[in-house]
């Protein structure tokens, strides 16, 4: 089939999915078809060895296939003057679907991961309430719970790209402070109702039980809306790195406000003005004013494959795929460009996008062997459109690096090498 018979969805090789399905094996597939399975070209297929011998017994705790690649988070180097401070990033370029496995969910800690025995853990509600209360973990487990799928993104994610300079890296190293899970817990409103919030309470100061007693202030409207006191993640008790035994979860908002190891909720008239909502997690603008309490994470998307540091082995057809999310609602549309934003084609969503959850998109692309710039651009249900980097820089400058939701550009050179580029 010649190239002219294919329906182009946009410039530089983006294809219409329906026509691709009719092509069958072409491009990459055709080139490799005779070499796979470890069998001779043209020979009859054989029953493989593993179908001739009973396999391993059932196990107590499952692991990955030894052939599936050793998926790992990427953690920074420990800093002796910041004990326990740091992060680990999810290997986005190797994941599919929308749920991040718990062992690979990104982490950000301010004083390490506390080793909490839930029998000694307390959750206190005090301040502007009629009756201050303390809850045991055992009793929290008895409440009615709800389950919701939500993304979590550190507001410092992708920050290095705003500052510019050499930023060769992978989807993981540049954007890996992003994950998505099913969170199960008690609506915060249930516990606040039990303590009976006084009308003058406008903020809820949340504090964790880590060594930094990290705190953040949440507006009462959000606290009574969709915030969870989360106890389970993807079906199992929340892991220590995510806040065991209990964390706050503020859907769609910058990750830091979903306070882990939650031990105190104090109802207040004004924000507590914690260090991590004044000196940190605020954005200094070009005019030197600083934006504070910037909570929702902006609409954003990212091509995870092909992506930074990958190599396209040969010209042919590739499935471009990635994730999209918004703190303002559900993803409505993702467009993909292969020519640096000159032309765009709408990608297919792999599943129905949920509110404040990761959505996955995919679109076929034929790489001709020439240079290309792959980009994705998301639009959310509130009508927000992901900005290009220059728009973000014009609005925010480069003093701060939080809340960067700009379009990521992956440059493909004529040898197939892929790197971050600034377009």
């Amino acid at each position, binding site marked *: 089939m010649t190239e002219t018979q294919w329906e182009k969805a946009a410039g530089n090789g983006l294809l219409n999915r329906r026509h691709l399905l009719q092509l069958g094996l072409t491009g990459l597939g055709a080139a490799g078809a005779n070499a796979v399975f470890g069998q001779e070209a043209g020979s009859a297929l054989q029953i493989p060895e593993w179908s001739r011998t009973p396999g391993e017994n059932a196990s107590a705790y499952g692991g990955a296939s030894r052939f599936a690649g050793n998926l790992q988070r990427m953690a920074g180097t420990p800093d002796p*003057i910041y004990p326990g401070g740091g992060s680990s990033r999810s290997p986005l370029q190797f994941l599919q679907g929308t749920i991040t496995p718990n062992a690979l969910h990104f982490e950000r800690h301010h004083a390490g991961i506390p080793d909490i025995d839930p029998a000694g853990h307390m959750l206190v509600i*005090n301040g502007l309430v009629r009756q*201050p209360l303390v809850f045991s973990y055992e009793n929290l487990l008895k409440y009615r719970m709800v389950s919701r799928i939500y993304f979590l993104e550190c507001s410092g994610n992708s920050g290095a790209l705003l500052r510019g300079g050499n930023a060769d890296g992978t989807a993981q190293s540049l954007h890996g402070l992003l994950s998505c899970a099913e969170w199960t817990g008690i609506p915060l409103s249930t516990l606040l109702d039990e303590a009976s919030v006084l009308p003058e309470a406008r903020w809820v*100061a949340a504090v964790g039980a880590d060594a930094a007693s990290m705190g953040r202030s949440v507006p009462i409207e*959000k606290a009574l809306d969709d915030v969870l006191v989360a106890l389970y993640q993807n079906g199992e008790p929340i892991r220590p790195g995510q806040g065991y035994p209990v964390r706050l979860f503020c859907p769609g908002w910058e990750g830091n406000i979903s306070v882990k190891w939650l031990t105190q909720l*104090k109802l207040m008239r004004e924000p507590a*003005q914690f260090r991590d909502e*004044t000196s940190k997690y605020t954005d200094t603008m070009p005019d030197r004013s600083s934006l*504070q309490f910037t*909570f929702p994470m902006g609409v954003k998307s990212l091509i995870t494959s092909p992506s930074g540091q990958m190599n396209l082995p040969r010209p042919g057809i590739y499935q471009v795929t990635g994730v999209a999310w918004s703190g303002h609602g559900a993803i409505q549309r993702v467009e993909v460009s292969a020519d640096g934003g000159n032309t765009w084609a709408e990608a297919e969503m792999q599943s129905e996008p949920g509110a404040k959850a990761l959505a996955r998109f995919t679109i076929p692309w034929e790489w001709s062997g020439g240079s290309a710039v792959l980009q994705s651009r998301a639009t959310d249900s509130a009508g927000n459109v992901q900005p290009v980097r220059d728009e973000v820089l014009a609005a925010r400058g480069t003093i701060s690096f939080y809340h960067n939701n700009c379009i990521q550009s992956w440059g493909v050179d004529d040898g197939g090498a892929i790197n971050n580029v600034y377009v």
Partner: protein
Amino acid sequence: MSTSRNAVTFGRILALLLLAGWVAPVGSQETRIQLGTPISEDQLSGFDLIAAPDGSGMPPGAGTARQGREVYELNCLRCHNVNGEGVSGNTVIAGGDMRSEESPLRTVGSFWPHASTLFDFIRRAMPADMPKTLTDEEAYQVTAYVLFLNGIIGEDQSINSETLTAIAMPNGNGFVDQSHLH
């Protein structure tokens, strides 16, 4: 007996049980689980570490920079260095100017909008390798010393809950609240 007679009979029995309060009607009233244990604010005086700009949560005690110098040298010097000069970007806690030509050095003095945050953070999180080891008195003293290093107070000015919250920080008007935009 026909099936419909059975249903009617069952319905009458259920109605009687409901009237008698023996069966809870599902969905007609919410089951309220209330398992929080009442506690008094007095019981939380050593637990609630939130020291807010309005002075709430600030413990008794006071300290001066002159007193704080020694506490600082024992507990803070290793990371924050002489005169708060720091040993890396994040540990610089004095100096800086938000109006500088190049990207401004953001420190307690140049950037932090509230003096209360300094006491709050020292008490809950510092020193980073031994948090919560300072007494309230020492936390006030170190707070005073860091404010002194930034030229915000004098060396012998007493810092307590009232004097601390009365301080107008140099960048106190430098923040714009975005919380209404969610």
